[in-house]
């Protein structure tokens, strides 16, 4: 994972909201750059 991917993952983690905390456990597995 490069610096940009690490920053992107941090950005996603900080801003993610999950309404189902009583339903199950949510975790981010990976954030990757893709070819566009």
């Amino acid at each position, binding site marked *: 994972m490069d610096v940009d*991917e690490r920053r992107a993952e941090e950005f996603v983690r900080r801003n993610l909201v*999950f*309404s*189902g905390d009583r*339903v*199950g*456990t949510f975790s981010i*597995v*990976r954030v990757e750059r893709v070819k566009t």
Partner: protein
Amino acid sequence: MSVILPIELLKEAFKQAQQMPQLVGPVPPGYSVTGRLEPPSGMGWVFTGFMFGGHLADGSSIPGYNFATGKGLVWKATYANVQPLRTFVDRTFYLTSDYLYQQIFYGPRPVTKFLEVTITNTLDQTVYFSNTAFVFELPLDRIMELFAGEGR
């Protein structure tokens, strides 16, 4: 598109309160984000539908996936199961306007281990992606009974 649940599953679904967990998070342009949802210990899920939405930072709705430009959101899910149920890797959903902002009935798909979802954003801006699931929760052994024979 709609789905009719098998009668045994329908009875079970009516007995259980259907839950609609929702996940909202940013997907930066040119990135894919993979998340994993695990049921509580000793329990499993049956998914019967999803709802997808996406907004830009200014609140405007994103357009549906455009095959001509290759721009939009792409969604893929893996329904991981303990034996003897099989792990099901779903086809790729290109989120065209047919799929955005409405309930998509499909499945039913059991999850006894975890649900893993990957969303890829090929648009030029960060998309705040919303994914609502329609699901009911059951003890693991009950799911094994209901889906017996679908494993092998």
